[in-house]
């Protein structure tokens, strides 16, 4: 090894290390500013410059500075510095590297009046992203290997911009897809849910209408009962759909009045036990006489929905309803002793269309019931939430503000304001 070759080897080694570092920075980069900061720090060991600016194309094709650093001479001159906007535009338009020398007055007095620019387009085959400009005051001019280094940096930044761009596109497509899937899923569920009862009604009605056969009384009654029940189911489903869409658009009207909560709960329980004799309901009024201002029909709807869910998801369990008072709240607890709800799903069950995946196939439902409950309770400025221990059952809690203005007996009508999901 001769003495002459040593510096050149050292330089190459340093260059390789710098290139390697730039590659590494680009690979790990999540956003542009800190990435360029790191690259500039790394590259300054082998390449002298004073200012660097990154311009990005805006929607109207104009360039806007996205990143700028004054590192070397003239840091204190701030905006008087040269930022190479013209060269940035030229370089992007021509899609080529432009090296330019600019003299602005007598540079022997102030060397900052002599500027060397290098403008590099940031573009890939399909996309133009902007330009990168390096500025050096007073010389020396850029050498060809330095130009190559700048080109390497610009190409890598272009790749990073490309990646960021692609990631953004993927994110927004994912989001759109998710919305679409949710909608498709809903349409599929709804049409299945509407068609199932319709299929039974049609099937059993045409069975009874068959002229080539006759049915005994028991069978006829069995079929008519099915038709009757399926008609109710269809009506309930349509009501739910309409309520849900009115709650969503903010057009569901509520009629508020002073009510004793225990009366509402008793009514619901009596009705449930008339129609569903197998469901055992235990109603416990810890504190009688709790008065609240509510729309009684809507509160009944909520409790009925919870009871109907208990029949569906905890079919053999009794249900315990408790009414108590806590500070300024009435507290209703609806408890079942069924299989419970896994913690992953507990946070989501009040979302519109949400259904627990395992149950989607085995139990009929649309994912609207609890959403409607939540919106109704929200319209009462109340709170509804659930807790559950898998294997032991679930408790649905409803908290409603106590009616403290008992002397005002006026009915009021409230139209729910639209609220974003």
């Amino acid at each position: 090894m001769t003495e002459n070759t040593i510096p050149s080897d050292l330089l190459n080694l340093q260059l390789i290390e710098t290139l390697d570092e730039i590659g590494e920075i680009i690979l790990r980069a999540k956003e542009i500013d800190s990435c360029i900061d790191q690259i500039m720090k790394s590259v300054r060991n082998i390449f002298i410059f004073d200012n660097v600016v990154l311009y990005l194309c805006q929607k109207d094709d104009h360039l806007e500075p996205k990143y700028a650093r004054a590192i070397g001479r003239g840091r204190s001159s701030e905006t008087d510095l040269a930022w190479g906007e013209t060269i940035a535009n030229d370089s992007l338009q021509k899609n080529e590297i432009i090296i330019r020398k600019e003299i602005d007055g007598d540079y022997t007095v102030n060397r900052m009046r002599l500027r060397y620019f290098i403008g590099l387009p940031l573009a890939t085959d399909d996309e133009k992203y902007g330009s990168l400009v390096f500025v050096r005051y007073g010389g020396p001019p850029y050498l060809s290997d330095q130009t190559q280094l700048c080109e390497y940096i610009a190409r890598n930044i272009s790749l990073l911009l490309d990646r960021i761009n692609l990631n953004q596109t993927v994110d927004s497509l994912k989001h759109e897809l998710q919305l679409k899937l949710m909608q498709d899923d809903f349409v599929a569920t709804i049409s299945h849910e509407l068609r199932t009862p319709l299929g039974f009604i049609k099937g059993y009605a045409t069975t009874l209408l068959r002229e080539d056969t006759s049915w005994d009384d028991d069978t006829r009654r069995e079929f008519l009962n099915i038709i009757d029940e399926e008609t109710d189911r269809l009506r309930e489903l349509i009501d739910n759909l309409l309520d849900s869409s009115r709650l969503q658009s903010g057009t569901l009207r509520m009629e508020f009045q002073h009510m004793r909560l225990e009366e509402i709960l008793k009514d619901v329980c009596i009705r449930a036990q008339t129609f569903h004799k197998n469901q055992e309901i235990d109603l416990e009024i810890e504190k009688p006489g709790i008065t609240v201002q509510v729309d009684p029909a809507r509160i009944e709807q909520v409790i009925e929905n919870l009871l109907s869910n208990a029949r569906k998801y905890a079919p053999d369990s009794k249900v315990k309803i408790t009414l108590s008072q806590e500070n300024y709240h009435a507290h209703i607890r609806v408890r079942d002793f069924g299989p419970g709800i896994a913690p992953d799903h507990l946070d989501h069950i009040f979302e519109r269309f949400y259904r627990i995946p395992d149950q989607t196939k085995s139990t009929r439902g649309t994912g609207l019931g609890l959403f409607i409950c939540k919106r109704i309770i929200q319209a009462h400025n109340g709170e509804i939430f659930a807790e559950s221990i898998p294997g032991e059952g679930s408790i649905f809690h409803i908290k409603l503000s106590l009616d403290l203005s008992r002397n005002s007996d006026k009915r009021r009508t409230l139209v729910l304001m639209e609220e974003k999901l």
Partner: protein
Amino acid sequence: MTAQILVVDDEPRYVRLMEANLLTEDYDVLRAYDGQKAVETVAENHPDLVLLDVMMPILDGITACERIREFSNVPIIMVTAKGEERDRVRGLDVGADDYVVKPFSATELLARVRAVLRRAESNGSASFQQPVFNHGNLKIDFTKAEVFKDEKMVYLSATEYRLLLQFAQNLGDILSSEDLLMNVWGEEYRNDKEILWVSISRLRHKLEDDPRNPQHIVTRSGLGYTMPKI
């Protein structure tokens, strides 16, 4: 002889509806409430006709139909909901004979059943292969799509299973690479021999005692492959 009809639907009310109407026509009725049970019932009871719902838990109607076709040509009527045109086409593609669209009227259902049974009768009665196929130490259970080597279950990918079925269902025949590629992978793969080589090699490693000296899937140089009769 009274025809025996298997009714499959996860909604008990549909099963009851179809059963009640079929009984008035003096058919014997078997019931199943999911696809897997349907396949097993066909294998055990050899019914004359299957009414098969599409949307079902455990095993959907399309897959159940596919499985049944691996060992039986029993007439199958798919029962689909309206608007599920894709399912109807897929059902016919995997070997269903006809379909009824929900909601259906009782008389329409019975008319379809009569028509399909009549057609089947003129074609000769339904045939059932053994739902379990044996080849030396190799066993395939068509009803569950499971493969065993020396009584131990072997995990096969869906493609590997379909490839193996080609041999089992054409025992002793020489199958050309093109045919295998078209039947298992599809028309566009007919010249993609390497993909077949990789899969045959993988199958042999899973199923053969000595993959270099195969007994189940044998190469016939220049012609193709065969599963020789034992």
